[in-house]
């Protein structure tokens, strides 16, 4: 037998793969990342942007766990904007447009600096099994690599088929070969595969756009960055253009619908409802006479523009016709046509909460292969799969984030418990503990955990504990001293003279009260850093609600602590409906809490499962 130089092999150099490899190496496992081309590691396959609502939360969390997506986004960001700025802090989501080249370079640089991590170019064609366990991978050149765990992150590459009108070509994305041998291997292993699709718009030549005739959207003046380590953007900040489709555009699209791959019946995969192609928009929202398009430059020195909002699978000549019907794009030159891509995914209900495939112990899956869409969703899974793969090999306990702890926990729990019917994307409304899972406090929620796992670097550690100290100091200041309504009125706050004394925290919770008011009351508070004071103000805003939700969260934790053995024989539990039994058998929930979230679950059935666990415990005891 060959000597095993690796603990963990990560297949794929997309967002899931990069994050997985980095996390695995941070966790102390000797890791190698195998991908088809070294120069495409960290490529943004579709839109040149990171973050957004729900997604921005994910990136902050990845960063708080010591991941790389936030750092790369900050190094490449050319238009930072905080979405929902005028809404409550819990639902604000940081987003940036990225310079593609800078983003890719940042990822490659960060991977290159990471000890324990090597990169290997090759196409994985085979999975090597022994006694039902994964033992390594076989490459298309016939060579073999052995390792204790494998993380599969092949994105849209499995049996990828690109559609442009009625033209069909095999590919993992434009310019890349698909991964067919591996897909066949997965089929042979009887994995539950399904088919999904997604699409991308045509790319335009910047110099062919009449920018002068367009409205522009400027970046934020005081950008919120992704990484807790970053202070300010490093790349120049630029604006993007805004234009709209019109009646003529819609006419061209309607007139050519049958020539679209989607509507011509060439595609069987299901696409995302929230990211419709322009054909979908015109058909499904026929009463709307116009749709907005953002013209996003793909980089500072790039001549390519990404028109956000018009993804399509129409033939090239139709694409050109409708693009040129749009104001500002009359002379636009298409550099690469838009297309739809169909690919295989694995039913994530088969995975454990560690993202492992229990049918093939040692094989972890992350990213678009699990039915998600989006860089952030992919990276979040990559992080967790990488950590868990490493910890498995090193003999440590798994890491699972709960729904009350992180968006990452919500994401993975949704996937493994509810499965997907369309490409899954994160939204803030998916998180029932949204008011406490905020982008601003991701570090407080997760960095201590990452620290005990030993996966954060010293500089982050020092910074974090300094900040925590300042926060604690602030909390003490805000809760010890109490002020009369008269004291409070002096700062300009309008308040009832009800004689009641209030703490700084209570005062900060008033609508229309800001840190500047409390600064006047508590000079030591005023001396704290801006970041810390703002953070405390947000805490005050949500304090009553978060406290109230805490009871729910505690109940949830109790249910999550009740482990269901993977071997539990649901067939032997009488009183379960066949439908539920089927779902339980497929999903094999890891905890009672997870079982409770299975669609159609009843309290009565949960009681039966609980009785059964207790029964088996007693028998074993």
């Amino acid at each position: 037998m060959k000597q095993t130089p690796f603990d963990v092999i990560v297949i794929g150099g997309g967002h899931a793969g990069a994050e997985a490899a980095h996390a695995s190496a941070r966790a102390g496992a000797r890791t190698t990342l195998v991908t088809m081309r070294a120069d495409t590691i960290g490529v943004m396959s579709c839109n040149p942007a990171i973050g957004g609502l729900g997604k921005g939360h994910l990136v902050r969390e990845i960063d708080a766990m010591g991941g790389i997506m936030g750092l790369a986004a900050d190094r490449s960001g050319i238009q930072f904007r905080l979405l929902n700025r005028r809404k409550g802090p819990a639902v604000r989501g940081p987003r940036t447009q990225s310079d593609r080249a800078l983003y890719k370079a940042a990822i490659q640089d960060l991977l290159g600096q990471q000890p324990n991590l090597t990169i290997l170019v090759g196409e994985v064609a085979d999975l090597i099994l022994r006694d039902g366990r994964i033992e390594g991978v076989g490459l298309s050149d016939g060579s073999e690599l052995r390792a204790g765990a494998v993380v599969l992150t092949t994105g849209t590459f499995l049996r990828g088929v690109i559609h442009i009108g009625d033209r069909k070509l095999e590919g993992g994305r434009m310019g890349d070969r698909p991964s067919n041998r591996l897909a066949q291997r997965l089929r042979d292993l009887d994995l539950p595969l399904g088919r999904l699709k997604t699409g991308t718009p045509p790319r335009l030549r910047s110099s062919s756009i009449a920018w002068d005739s367009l409205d522009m959207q400027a970046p934020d003046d005081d950008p919120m960055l992704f990484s807790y380590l970053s202070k300010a953007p490093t790349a120049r900040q630029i604006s993007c253009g805004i234009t709209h489709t019109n009646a003529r555009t819609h006419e061209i699209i309607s007139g050519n619908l049958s020539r679209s791959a989607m509507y011509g019946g060439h595609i069987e995969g299901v696409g995302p409802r929230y990211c419709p192609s322009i054909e979908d928009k015109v058909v499904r929202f026929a009463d709307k006479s116009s749709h907005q398009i953002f013209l996003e430059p793909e980089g500072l020195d790039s001549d390519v523009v990404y028109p956000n909002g018009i993804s399509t699978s129409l033939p090239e000549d139709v694409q050109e016709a409708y693009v040129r019907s749009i104001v500002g794009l009359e002379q636009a030159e298409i550099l690469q046509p838009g297309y739809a891509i169909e690919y295989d995914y694995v039913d994530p209900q088969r995975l454990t909460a560690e993202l492992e495939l229990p049918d093939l112990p040692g094989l972890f899956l992350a990213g678009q292969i699990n039915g998600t869409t989006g860089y952030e969703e992919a990276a979040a899974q990559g992080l967790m799969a990488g950590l868990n793969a490493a910890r498995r090999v090193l003999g440590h306990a798994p890491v699972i984030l709960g729904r009350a702890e992180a968006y990452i926990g919500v994401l993975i729990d949704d996937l493994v418990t509810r499965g997907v019917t369309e490409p899954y994307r994160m939204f803030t409304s998916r998180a029932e503990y949204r008011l406490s899972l905020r982008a601003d406090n991701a570090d407080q929620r997760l960095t201590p955990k990452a620290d005990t796992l030993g996966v954060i670097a010293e500089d982050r550690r020092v910074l974090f504990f300094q900040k925590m100290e300042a926060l604690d100091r602030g909390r003490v200041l805000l809760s010890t001293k109490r002020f009369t309504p008269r004291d409070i009125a002096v700062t300009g706050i309008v308040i009832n003279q009800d004689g009641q004394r209030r703490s700084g925290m209570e005062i900060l919770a008033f609508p229309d009260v800001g840190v500047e008011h409390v600064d006047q009351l508590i000079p030591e508070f005023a001396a704290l850093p801006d970041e810390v004071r703002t953070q405390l103000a947000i805490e005050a805003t949500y304090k009553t609600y978060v406290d109230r939700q805490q009871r729910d969260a505690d109940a949830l934790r109790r249910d999550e602590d009740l482990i269901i053995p993977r071997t539990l024989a649901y067939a032997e539990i009488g009183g379960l409906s066949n439908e539920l039994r089927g779902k339980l058998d497929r999903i094999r929930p890891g905890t009672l809490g997870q079982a409770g979230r299975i669609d159609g679950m009843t309290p009565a059935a949960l009681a039966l499962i609980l009785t059964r666990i207790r029964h088996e415990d007693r028998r074993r005891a």
Partner: protein
Amino acid sequence: MQTIFALATARGKSGVAVIRISGPDAHQVATCLAGDLPRPGQFALRTLRDASELLLDEGLVLRFDAPRSFTGEDTVELQLHGSIAVIRAVERAIAETGLARVAEPGEFTRRALMNGNLDLAQVEGLSDLIAAETEAQRQQAQGLFSGRMRKFADRCRADLLRAAALIEATIDFADEEVPVDVSPEVGDLIGSVLGAIDEQISGFSGAERLRHGFEVAIIGQPNVGKSTLLNRIAGRDIAITSEIAGTTRDVLEVRVDLDGLPVTFLDTAGLRDSDDVIEKIGVARARERAAAADLRILLEDGVEPTHGFDPGVAIDFRYETKSDITGRGISAFTGEGIDRLLADVSAALADRVSDTAIASHERHRQAIMRARASLAEADLVFHAGIEGAEILALHLRDGARALDSLIGRMDVEAVLGEIFAQFCIGK
């Protein structure tokens, strides 16, 4: 899951007795006794024998196959001759098969709930139905049993879902082209659910009284004819359902079915100032009971009127008695005017029972009040503007959850035990 059995009818002599067997081995148990079974959903006459071929009885065997049975499991019902000895013999033979055990109280219904054949409110309706004594109680219980609560909860929930969806759209798709001003519709939806909830809250007390029975206190000075009136009411063409001596010697109760409403009339001690310690206690108790009753009828002596008498409690109806002598008012002695009195009482009580009231159990009230509290907060945030969208959404979610608990979609394990303890074996 074990197979269970129990007598489903009352124990004692009767024309027919029904034993119900439910669970995976129900068919096999019945086959042991009856030889063979009719086809699913059918019945047949069979001779029942025990393992030693001893003849037990001849009876009807009804076969139900899962999930089309009350419990949702395989079930067999045996209709036997209603003899204590026959029942005992058949129960013994069933137990001797070793395939089934005696059901615990409420276990059949519990299984129906587990298998999703009934929701929690339906289970409560079933319990009420079994306890119902009058027509209005029967209708109320039937309503609950037939799933009216689910319909109510589902309707409110659909509105809250829509409201939540509109709010969430403005949060999660702020960077897309969604309508920014969803407020008019959200406001309407919250308002309409609050309205429906308030209707239930205001109907609750009447509905709850209907379930337990109304109390009407007859009060007045001594010797105005209270007891005669009570006897009249009891002796009328009204079904007496029970006659209980009051908790004190001085309060007498007669429970009647008044136009379908369950009503208990209370005859209380005559109200007067007295130095007698025992009588003083009786008078105090009379006032207490009267104050707690749903209606109070004050009887006044038509022959020897006392002016300026203060009964010490609020009065709903006032009648002058002894019309046989005075020609005015009512006479408990001849029965004159009693029909009118009963009609007054019946109308006043019927007024309190609303057709739309579904909530009739304390558990319902609590869930609905929780929902109301969340929605009232939602309403408050809503009127404060869109800035609190994420908080509004939280309240809507909490409200929907409280409504869910009405029909037992979550958090019910705790209440289950209590509900099932109320059930008798076999029902």
